[in-house]
């Protein structure tokens, strides 16, 4: 999306699209778009034909999930037991949690208000079981005097069966959950499977489905609980090291290494202290991890304060990536790369990731753009440096002037010869040997009128070698200027 391309418009309908087989289709819509008559599932082209001003963004399922996770985190203020009901629901087990809010309605009101502040539209329902609550929240229309009757009035879709079974039931004339419940369970099971029968039992309350514990974000989590809170930070860190060893073992089994680690030290008084570290490469190196944790602690504004002591230490691996069993190093080839990575991690943790940089080759003909300084930890897919050719002098010097130095050229051959002599910093150099031109045309897509450069490798009478260029062809301008761009060693 390039917003500057559009003529500004307020209140444009917005849609999120996803690319599925058969084209780009609408995935989610804002209110304006719904008002304009669009529905999810429509092809983008179709939607555009109807609502030409529609603004479109790529749907990001992952971001949606993360957002839901964050909401779930937030809901933990009401109850520790929060389950995700993907893609857009949360199930809270509030049994025993309502006292703080003087009743479940207050709790719900509080929750709705908080979410409304973030611009969310919330529908909620209470139920004796997670399934009824879920079904009621998603499908209930008008309120009913009691939960059982409300459930019976739900459309068959609330059974949560697959689409085929749902339509089949509805087409058979069984439009509500109650209609289905009225039929012998065996006949339903014979047609729609045990699963359907189970759902009915869950909704009528004869079976209580489990609340699916919220899937932890962390791939691996290990923890130590202590009967007696431990009051020494040093001891807590030893525990952390033990946990790291356990986690590393699990990672080894999975052929993975962690990149994002989170340690949480739970104080007996309820305060939680978090330590997050991130490595540039996936790792299972406990020593490295502990060094990083220590550095993180050192860099904290407030030092760790155990207070009355920690009663729980937990370590989560939030992000893990493939890492095969490392080779034993004999001559250190492989290890060196690892050492650089370690150095980068170490420096980055102390100085800030953005401040540790390295040169990286870039794919460009323009000499000054062929290399770039990038944050070292970002580890971009490295463009290989062009290997110098054997038996050939280098085409370009290692050192470039930035910006190139203007020179005064004398007696250059038109149209494509180098000068016979030139003045640089008040010194005149007589050209003894030259080769070129290497012609590099301007990047027309950046600006229309970038002049072409003709580069020459020059050696003066005293054996000094220069890299000079004429900025512009004689056909492009009347008197192109000359520059010295670098010197060969």
């Amino acid at each position, binding site marked *: 999306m390039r917003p500057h391309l559009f003529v500004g418009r307020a209140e444009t309908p917005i849609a999120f699209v996803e690319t599925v087989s058969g084209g780009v289709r609408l995935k989610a819509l804002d209110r304006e778009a719904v008002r304009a*008559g669009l529905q999810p599932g429509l092809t983008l082209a179709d939607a555009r034909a109807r609502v030409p001003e529609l603004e479109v963004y790529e749907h990001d399922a992952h971001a949606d999930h993360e957002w839901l996770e964050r909401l779930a985190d937030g809901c933990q203020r009401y109850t520790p037991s929060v389950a995700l009901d993907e893609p857009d629901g949360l199930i809270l087990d509030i049994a025993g949690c309502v006292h703080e809010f003087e009743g479940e309605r207050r709790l719900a009101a509080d929750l709705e208000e908080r979410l409304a502040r973030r611009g969310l539209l919330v529908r909620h329902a209470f139920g004796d079981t997670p399934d009824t609550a879920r079904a009621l929240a998603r499908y209930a229309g008008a309120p009913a005097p009691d939960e059982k009757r409300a459930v019976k009035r739900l459309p068959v879709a609330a059974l949560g069966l697959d689409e085929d079974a749902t339509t089949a039931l509805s087409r058979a004339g069984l439009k509500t959950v109650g209609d289905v419940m009225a039929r012998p369970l065996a006949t339903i099971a014979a047609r729609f499977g045990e699963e359907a029968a189970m759902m009915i039992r869950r909704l009528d309350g004869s079976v209580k489905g489990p609340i699916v514990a919220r899937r932890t974000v962390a791939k691996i989590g290990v923890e130590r609980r202590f009967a007696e809170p431990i009051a020494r930070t040093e001891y807590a860190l030893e525990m952390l090291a033990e946990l790291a060893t356990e986690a590393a073992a699990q990672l080894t089994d999975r052929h993975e290494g962690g990149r994002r680690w989170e340690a949480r030290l739970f104080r007996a008084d309820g305060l939680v202290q978090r330590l997050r570290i991130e490595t540039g490469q996936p790792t299972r190196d406990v020593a490295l991890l502990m060094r990083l944790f220590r550095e993180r602690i050192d860099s904290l504004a407030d030092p760790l304060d155990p207070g009355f002591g920690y009663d729980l230490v937990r370590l989560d691996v939030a992000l893990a990536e493939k890492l095969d069993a490392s080779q034993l190093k004999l001559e250190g080839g492989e290890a060196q790369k690892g050492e650089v990575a370690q150095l980068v991690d170490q420096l980055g943790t102390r100085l800030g990731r953005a401040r540790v940089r390295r040169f990286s080759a870039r794919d460009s003909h323009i000499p000054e753009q062929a290399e770039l300084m990038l944050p070292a930890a970002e580890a971009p897919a490295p463009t290989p440096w062009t290997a110098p050719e054997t038996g050939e002098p280098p085409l370009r010097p290692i050192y470039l002037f930035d910006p190139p130095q203007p020179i005064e050229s004398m007696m250059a051959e038109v149209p494509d010869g180098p000068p016979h002599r030139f003045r640089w910093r008040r010194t005149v150099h007589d050209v003894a040997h030259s080769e070129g031109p290497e012609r590099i045309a301007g990047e027309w897509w950046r600006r229309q009128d970038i002049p072409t450069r003709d580069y020459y490798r020059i050696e003066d009478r005293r054996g000094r070698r220069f890299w000079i260029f004429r900025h512009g062809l004689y056909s492009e301008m009347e008197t192109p200027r000359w520059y010295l761009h670098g010197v060969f060693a």
Partner: protein
Amino acid sequence: MTGFAELVAATNFSFLDGASDAGAMVGRAVELGLGGIGIVDRNTVAGVVRAHQALKKARDGLLGMAMPPIDFRLVVGARLVFEDGTPDIVAYPSTRRGWGRLTRLLTVGNRRAEKGGCILGLGDLIAHHADMMLVVMPESSARGAVPVSPLPDGDALPERGERELRTILKAVKRLGPDSIWLGVTMPRGGRDRRRLARLGRIADAAGVPVLATTDALYAYTDDRDLHDVVTCIRERTTIHKAGRLLAANGERHLKPEEEIARLFRDRPDAVAQSARLLSRIAFSLDDLKYEYPHEPIPAGWEAQDWLEHHVWQLALERYDYRVPEKMRALLHEEFALIREREYAYYFLTVHDIVRFARAQDPPILCQGRGSAANSVVCYLLGVTSVDPMKYDLLFSRFVSSERDEPPDIDVDFEHERREEVMQYIYRRYGRDRAAIAATVIHYRPKSTVREVGKALGLTEDVTQRLTSTVWGSFSSRFQEQRFAETGFDVDNPEIARLREMVDRLLEFPRHLSQHVGGFVLTQGRLDEMVPIHNGAMEERTFIEWDKDDIDALGLMKVDILALGMLTCIRKSFDLMRLHGLGDHLLDTIAVAEDPRVYDMLCKGDSIGVFQVESRAQINMLPRLRPRELYDLVVQVAIVRPGPIEGDMVHPYLRRRSGKEVAEYPSPDPKFGPADELKQLLRFTYGVPLFQEQAMKLAIVAAGFTPNEANQLRKSMATFRKVGGMDNFHAKLIGGMVGRGYQAEFAERCFKQIEGFGSYGFPESHALSFARLVYVSSWIKCFHPAVFCCALLNSQPMGFYAPAQLVRDAVEHGVTVLPVDVNASGWDNSLSSPVRGGGPREAGWRGASADVSLAGVTVTGGAFADATFPSGASAAPPLHHPADGPPPRAGEDLRLGFRQVDGFRKDWADEIVRVRTTPFASIEDLARRANLPQRAMNLLADADAFRSVAKERRDALWDVRRTPPKQLALFAAAEVPELGVEPDAHLPAMPLSEQVAADYQTTRLSLKAHPMQFLRARFAAEGILSSAQANATKDGRRAKVAGVVLVRQRPGKGNAIFVTIEDETGITNGLMWARDFEANRRAVMASRLMVLEGVIQRSEEGVTHLMTSRVQDRTEMLRLLSEDHALEPPLARVDEVIRPVLTRSPDARAHHPRATHPRDVRVLPKSRDFH
């Protein structure tokens, strides 16, 4: 001056590599004063004919550039790019034989590649090298197999490469010591001179001369940016990310001799070598002498003699040994022409193909058309059935005879059986002598915007927004307005750049595809004429030249086309034979011109009829009032953009009805006879309607040579031609005024010809089509059930969806019976009028037949009295005493399983196979036919179990319980394996829901029309039914509701046609473009709409609702059923759902491209809705 020639120049047929077309390359070479140019593309000769033609045109002064010097030479060959790491080798055939070797070499590579591409190794060249001049390039440019050097071209060769180059030079030199060069470029890579010296040393050591070249990829310096863009498209990257995939500089353009001389000042010999190489090449594409295949002639006969003998024989037989004098004269005249042009083989070949089709059992229906097809010879040979004596078609032949082009005969075959004919041709001539012509797929606005946009780094979203506003057919030029419409700032530099690039890339060839049916046949090996490729379809091969190339070189082409209506007619004949309704042939029907058939057509009653079934045609029928075959010829041709935009329709109609006298302006008597135009236009009342007439107008009235007239037509068809057009305009006006015509009249003629250039319909085609119009009308008129049945069984074809065809049949008195497991087969069928379905059979009957809905409980007040009225008024006379065996009115049409969406033929066949006795229950059927669950569900959904006493809901409930896979085990026990179950007491399905379910499964309902359930609601709002609207007074305002049948935006797009349907009939809405934008969403998205406007009735009784407002009421369809998404079927030609594909107005208006040939040739040109 050594007369330097650039001998390594690519065109845009080096797909996504070359960035200029052949014309530009040749033109620039001439402009630079080069001694010549050698066109070589990567492993192909697909572009060389264009270069050849460009030079010819330039010599004729038609390219809008300086006249090439007489000794300017064009040589053609190919750049061989090897997969085995061998450096590229440019190969120029020096003789005709060498050309044959080259094309065979490329064929070997093409056939080796599974699909697309050309896989060659050095060994292939060694095997085919004879009579070729070879230029070895120092590096390979193969992509993929060999990694391309990461640095720009012109780097030092690695040692290994150098050694390899020596070996290659040595190896190639052995092929012809005197005919090999080492091609060296000076790419400004920084060390060009050292490189030249080194390569020079290698060449000298090998005893091979060095050839100076630029290895040009484009004509002008300024083309560098376009080359960068195509590189990005090729590499699937963006200009910002491409980096060193792009060339470092823009040096690969054609250069003048002085610059080459300066670049190569160290080796002047290299520059001189180009002239030497040029002098060694004797071959030109003009040397390709085409020879017709000799197959169809008995031994000992000369082709011409055999043709004459055979045709005379046929004439004697047909006329019972008394050949009429006029026929004799015609035959003599035609034979002379055929002899002069040596076309005898051509006629015999077409005859042979037609004879094969007719000899099959059952015979394949076929019919010829095209300029050469209207000859007496073709008529007697049975290629066509339009009697040229009767229709006086001489003048259409005239054009083709003076055009220096091979004759043109297209033969249509039944679309389901064309493949048999094609395979016969391959069998008969062999794959080395027969292949399909290529179709060059060009960059079209949409694809260009998409790909250029991607290359420039614009997101899919932006480009889609742009492409969604490109209307398909006419606008090949990307218009400023289109950009503005999308909300983009036209002055935005990125957008400006996109526009410019799109304009330049448009019309570039994109890839080769196979022509729909144009066969090229030769006597000698075809692969020694042109390289052959594997087709995308198995068992197909095609050559790499397209129709225009073939025309240019004078190769013979026979178009083997597929026509759905022929299938339908054949199926109609089969049904009639089966049911004792007579034994018919195309010829026996078309002779008698029955007034009742024309009566039907005059009423506009033509749904399903070939060619004249579109709304526009239906509206035209009552105005044109056809009474004989030639009227149908006009009818077919007149509803086309050409005549419409040339403003010829109204003058024609006025003159035909006698309201206006036909005028024929005369030239100055000293130039020609006063009635020269009358001679030309008398059959069409002085209005040029056919392409031939327009062409001939230029010849007769403006003194064009036939060749010029043809070029005029072609240059109008292919826009983007440099200059030229103005010349023709001046020449035509000048020619006509000079011969004494009024300037104003001349100007009008030019306008008309302009309209025709691309969209005119040739009379030679309209004639053959008219016959099929008549035959299909005849069947529809006398055997509506047969016609409907055959149409349904030939789907997909035609304009309308099955629902509309069935409805039309019912209105003509046919009883249509639903799909049923105990009565249906895969195909729709006719059952005897005695019905055996039992009391529950709810058929949809026309006229007085009542609608029985027994067993269906109808609920809901508004929906209660749901009977289906039918418009019996339109029913034609079904039986006439004088009409041979009396056709039985009211034959029943039984729908077949093919109407059930998603059902499969093998399931249907299995049901029929095991149905020795009627099925007693669902379980019975499940046990005997052993169908998968999906099939059973579909049958239940489609309500096909009625005859086993099950209503749709019960059936659905039951099939879900029947697990078919376990049945075999229990079947042995011969007991019903499923225990008795308590009745589920399912609620009855309301009729409205039944209808919705019918639409969902079979896309039509025999029970009722969806609109009638909503009638009360609409009536309450004062909204009329179609019947009421059609009875409303002219000029009254009205609101009409209906489900959408078809939306079209024909011609210039000034008007949008929307046809809606309800239980009483249809309403034709017409909306002007100015009202469209405000109603865009409703027009585009609705399936049920309310049209508001003013009723307008024409003299002929055609009623339109001049619509100013459209309401989308689609959501009301949901009232019918919650569970069945009711989507009323749209006609097949609805342009919103099925946008008309972008087509280039090709050289000949009927030239098919990409889609189904029927659609391409027959649909009126129109704009799509996106």
